[in-house]
């Protein structure tokens, strides 16, 4: 009897909860694994921060639902005449959230702030030599060479109000101590900050004076970081949050099996690959081959590529949700080389033959380094790959570790083969060529993630030409050449494109963008 009473009370409680939800239908509660560590758009160049702040701040250009570049604070832009660079015509009548007007001075100020040594986003402005205010609503960005991709590359360059920043001692991003802009905002975007408790809760409300037509019906957005995946799933299933990004692959069935919830799946732009120590003269972790580095022979690298069965990896580890990759960007990204869309097939016999041809009929052992907390199923992937390598005689000594310890090891050349995932920040093939394929060149800031220092004179020669080429066909021809060379030489083994898996309540309409950014302005709560 007591139990039944308890049940009734619970039912009433549930009914109450439903009523309460109905009353505030336009509050969207969402969760993600990482809290944006600052509200300063220039302090940190990381996805959680840039994704979140894109709801509050805006750039000269912005990305649409399909990642295409569209006008935002600039209404149009065209190449400068007589010199290299771009002229942006700014939108008139835009106001910041504190009511002050947006002008070219704010753009100039934001450029100076974002390109300062204190800013982590300054690399975006490496090609910029000068910025000139022409009039109140026109501004010129002068670059050191023709730069057709410059407008695309500054989609996350967010504009701050000059007077607000200077007036609050936040003229530069915080270096040691926090400053006003770490915890407060004043952007031109669709939402503004209504509350911030770092690591606990961040509340957004619509900016009434936003210049654009609002597509959303959200009156309040509440963001909570939830680090533990099981806790996040429970929070969604219990109805305490409306949306979560991402959920682990193994939880997909749980969510799909429940009434009122759905899983949103897409392809992220991140390509997972294996890299080699091209420059290493010997293997570090081999027990049998110690005087040479067999991976310097392209036949051995190709053998490794032929040893991997992506279909099995997809079926067993990823429930059919990955897309095999032939190059360092997925199909659909600008510059993707259609001409080179084949990847080495799974062919263990061919792999063994290639190894024998290269002088290793019995194979050899080497060290494989992987992360265990950076990419989806990264450790499981490496275990699977290691056993596939072993089947053709490549005995991988696998060592995995957290990412916080991983990059320093790669920078110190402490690997024979390594795992890497790369998402092209500019959504163009030029990005991975610049960071992963060009020879390491600290002076010119090129090849900074090319840990094994893959080096090909023709690729190095083509990169600046690709960067400066205005004609799309000529540009694509050069990119095709780079992709062909790097495939021929097996500079990397591209594996697959990582899936993007979000989960939401059925009554929430939202857009899943390929860069994993969540835009509150595309949300409708029904």
């Amino acid at each position: 009897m007591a139990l039944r009473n308890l049940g009734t009370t619970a039912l009433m409680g549930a009914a109450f909860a439903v009523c309460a939800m109905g009353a505030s239908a336009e509050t969207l509660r969402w969760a993600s694994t990482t809290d944006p560590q600052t509200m300063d758009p220039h302090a940190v160049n990381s996805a959680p921060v840039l994704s979140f702040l894109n709801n509050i701040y805006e750039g000269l250009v912005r990305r649409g639902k399909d990642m295409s570049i569209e006008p935002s604070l600039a209404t149009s832009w065209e190449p400068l005449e007589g010199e290299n660079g771009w002229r942006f015509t700014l939108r008139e009548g835009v106001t910041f959230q504190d009511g002050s007007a947006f002008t070219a001075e704010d753009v100039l100020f934001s450029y100076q702030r974002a390109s300062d040594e204190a800013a982590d986003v300054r690399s975006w402005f490496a090609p910029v030599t000068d910025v000139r205010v022409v009039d109140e609503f026109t501004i010129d960005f002068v670059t050191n060479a023709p730069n057709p991709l410059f407008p695309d590359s500054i989609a996350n360059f967010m504009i701050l109000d000059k007077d607000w920043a200077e007036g609050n001692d936040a003229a530069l991003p915080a270096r040691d101590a926090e400053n006003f802009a770490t915890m407060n905002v004043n952007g031109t975007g669709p939402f503004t900050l209504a509350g911030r408790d770092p690591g606990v809760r961040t509340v957004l409300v619509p900016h009434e004076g936003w210049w654009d037509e609002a597509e959303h019906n959200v009156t309040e957005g509440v963001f909570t970081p939830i680090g533990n995946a099981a806790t996040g799933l429970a929070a969604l299933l219990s109805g305490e949050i409306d949306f979560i990004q991402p959920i682990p692959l193994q939880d997909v069935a749980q969510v799909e099996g429940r009434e009122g919830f759905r899983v949103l799946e897409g392809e992220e732009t991140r390509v997972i690959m294996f890299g080699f120590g091209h420059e290493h003269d010997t293997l570090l972790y081999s027990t049998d081959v110690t005087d040479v580095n067999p991976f310097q022979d392209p036949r051995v690298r190709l053998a490794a590529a032929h040893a991997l069965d992506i279909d099995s990896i997809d079926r067993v580890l990823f429930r059919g949700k990955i897309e095999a990759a032939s190059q360092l960007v997925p199909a659909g990204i600008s510059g993707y080389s259609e001409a080179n869309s084949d990847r080495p097939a799974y062919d263990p016999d061919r792999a063994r033959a290639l190894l024998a041809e290269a002088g290793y009929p019995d194979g050899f052992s080497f060290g494989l380094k992987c992360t265990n907390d950076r990419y989806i199923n990264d450790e499981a992937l490496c275990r699977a790959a290691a056993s596939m390598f072993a089947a053709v005689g490549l005995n991988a000594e696998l060592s995995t570790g957290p990412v916080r310890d991983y990059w320093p090891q790669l920078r110190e050349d402490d690997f024979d083969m390594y795992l890497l995932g790369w998402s092209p920040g500019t959504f163009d093939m030029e990005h991975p060529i610049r960071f992963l394929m060009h020879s390491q060149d600290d002076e010119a800031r090129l090849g900074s993630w090319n840990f094994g220092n893959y080096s090909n004179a023709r690729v190095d020669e083509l990169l600046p030409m690709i960067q400066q080429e205005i004609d799309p066909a000529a540009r694509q021809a050069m990119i095709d050449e780079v992709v062909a060379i790097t495939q021929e030489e097996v500079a990397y083994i591209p594996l697959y494109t990582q899936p993007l898996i979000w989960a939401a309540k059925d009554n929430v309409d939202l857009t899943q963008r390929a860069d994993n950014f969540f835009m509150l302005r595309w949300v409708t709560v029904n």
Partner: protein
Amino acid sequence: MVYFILKRLVQSVFVMLAVAFLAFSLFRFVGDPISQMTGVETTVADQERLREDLGLNDPFVVQFYRFTTDMLQGDFGFSYRTRQPVADMIADRIPATLELGVVALIISLIVGIPAGVYTALRPRGVLTQGILLTTLVGVSIPTFVIGIMLIFIFGVQLGWLPTFGRNGTVQIGGWESSLFTVQGWRSLILPAVTLGVYQLTLTMRLVRAEMMEVMRSDYIRFGMARGVPMGRLHYRHALANTMVPVITIIGLQFGGVIAFSIVTESVFQWPGMGLLFLESIRFVDIPVMGVYLVVIAFFFVLVNLIVDLLYVAIDPRLRVKDL
């Protein structure tokens, strides 16, 4: 008495210094803060400049000296991750952890002591066997599994309690408390039970063992023979003598409850110091990790001191000897 307390507080400074030293010597193995602080497009030169600015290139001894001297002057530094003052970050999170720990302790005592007495007095009862079995299962399952199970039963299936976070808090003079609203208690109850389960079992078994021991002693038998009422004998004479060792162990355990609430806080996304520490490890936020460990060391010392004082209060013999 005052001398005794002062002596212990001076000792605590050395304990904290030792902890800071150990912690600092381990931080270099946690990872590289710079690669966590900067984006992928940041140039190597900019990373090196940042490393130099933060003093990460200095020898270990120099870094440790800087950390301790700053801290002795009350400067706890700034977080690498959020740039906030570390002292504020930790201070903001202390109420959540302390309330969670204290409520967990109270739950474990309220349930554990009576259960211990009951199982000691009726060692062969069916209920006793049931209690012993249940608590054995409870203590054998890892904390995070208990937490997830409770979340799925009471949060997801029944929908009675929130699954995560700390809601319904009220500000009372700078202390953010969840003890004054229904909402606050609803959020608190699952994590507190999760955190208290181990402590509960320990308390119960300790009380049971001690009580059974005491019940066999001569003065109890003598009391029985004299016809002292059983209730008085059990709860006045036997229980009081049972509590001395129990308080020591429980007190020492409480320091552990605070320090190891990390797992519970992570499962329930409870915004306490433990959760902050976990986030800091992920980002190799050395200043926060350092201060957290020193603060925890201080808690341990403080709890031990309180236990020693309680000891004196409970056992009159110690009062005479020590002073």
